[in-house]
């Protein structure tokens, strides 16, 4: 198997996995799911680190650093805001009086 085919295999299988894992999501969770998926593609930060760490001119270094900042905003902001949303979902029902030992 040539190397390109290995990559293609990983790609195709990932497509099926991606669809399969969210196929039963309830519409209640669409917003956090979208936001969480959004955070996951912030992993481009890894790519930004790799290219910035091998930058060989001032221009490429600056562009790389900009990419690093942008990617970090995507990744960190995405995970934090998703957690903030989900935290509200998992809160105990409000009817209980406050401080009942929880």
């Amino acid at each position, binding site marked *: 198997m040539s190397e390109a085919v290995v990559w293609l295999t990983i790609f195709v299988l990932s*497509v099926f996995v991606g669809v399969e894992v969210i196929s039963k999501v309830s519409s209640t969770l669409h917003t956090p799911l979208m936001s969480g998926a959004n955070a996951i593609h912030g992993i481009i930060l890894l790519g930004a680190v790799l290219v910035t760490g091998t930058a060989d001119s001032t221009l490429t270094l600056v562009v790389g650093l900009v990419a690093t900042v942008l990617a970090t905003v995507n990744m960190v902001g995405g995970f934090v805001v998703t957690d903030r949303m989900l935290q509200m979902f998992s809160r105990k029902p409000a009817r209980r009086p406050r401080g009942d030992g929880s």
Partner: protein
Amino acid sequence: MTPTVTSTLAPTWVQLVYLACAVCFVLALKGLAGPRTARVGNLVGATAAVVAVAVPFTYLDLDHVALILVAIAVGSVVGALGAQRVQMTQMPQLVALFNGVGGGAAALVALLELDHLGPGTPAFDVGATAFTVAVGAVSFAGSVVTFAKLQELMTSRPVVFPGLPLAAGAALLAALVLAGLVVAEVAVGWAVALALVGLAVGVLLVLPVGGADVPIVISLLNALTGLTVAAGGYVLGNVVLLVAGTLVGAAGTFLTLLMARAMGRSVAHILFGALRGGSTLGAGEASDRPVRSAGPEDVAILLGYAERVVVVPGYGLAVAQAQHTLRELVEVLAARGARVDYAIHPVAGRMPGHMNVLLAEAQVPYDQLVEMDDINPELPHTDVVLVVGANDVVNPAARTTPSAPIYGMPILDVDRARQVVFLKRSMRPGFAGIENELLFDPRTTLLFGDAKESLAKLLAAVKSL
């Protein structure tokens, strides 16, 4: 895979860590799809992301490490502050913005990687780089326009001008030609031009999309950014980027289709509907036809003596920050013996599932939130439907007026209830910019004013019954 500096074969342990991270992203998405596991899923994803980013620092001899760490610190502060400070009502804008910067970062990474590629690089690899540059730019520009629409920095109605389809076509063609030149000459100059044209395509793609459809576009752009990251992963020879990007691309595409189905239309219609022109534009102006309005005391009597009440919360409720007052009113009504539920349209708020987030913030118990398909059969037997700050999701034009932009969208059939009360700030039409005939129906009563004030007055009036 291209043997550049960045992708020289990593040690086995690194590859195994990357594999573990890829598995964690699968588990993260899987977790996010279920209510009980969602929070853990998100944390698993975040942990995997941090580990994956840390790995290259440990085994590669990277330059500029201090500067990179500063850049990461700056990005973390900006991202975390934005995420902490944002109002829940502004969630769709924020997701759009985060998505945009991710797409922009992917495009820049691909531009830099292209700089490393030599003339002998296989055409497919250069093509993948060009794809990342172009689509990343589309995603960035499209997300910025989406943000502007949702933040109401510009009109939320479809923007169309006579030359738009021509301009969009020309931009697409130019992008294809430039991508060809990038592949043929492996030249960064052409790639920069490609990125600029990509920006134009992104703007032209989102301009004609109407406000109510913007959330679907966010989801689509999210999927596009995922694919961009996947292509970037191929170019860099990094399996984590490939798997994570592909997962998001596939899941995002599927989610986009699910949402489009919930709104009763195709993705193509959402993107290009306004271009077919003519009838799809809303009037966007207030009408001066007579309506029946009443004071809080009259509405309180209507509600206070009803046996079955359904509340339809909309974006206006959240903008007025009136969720807590509404929850109190519902509790008082329930205490008086009425059966009260919240009817949640799948796209209530500004994004599918958004209303659930907003009500969860106000600690409304989930068992009172009833989805559209379950509540619709009960509406004909409902004494009073209280519509707070919602409009398009209860607009019967979706069933009756083929020319309406929301035609075909499944709606909450509140026009079949015995009485309808609208709490409205003004007669201004909803986000889709179309008038709601239900407002002029003889069974409809309007209570004008800020949602929070109106609900507070209603609450006081019901309590004193």
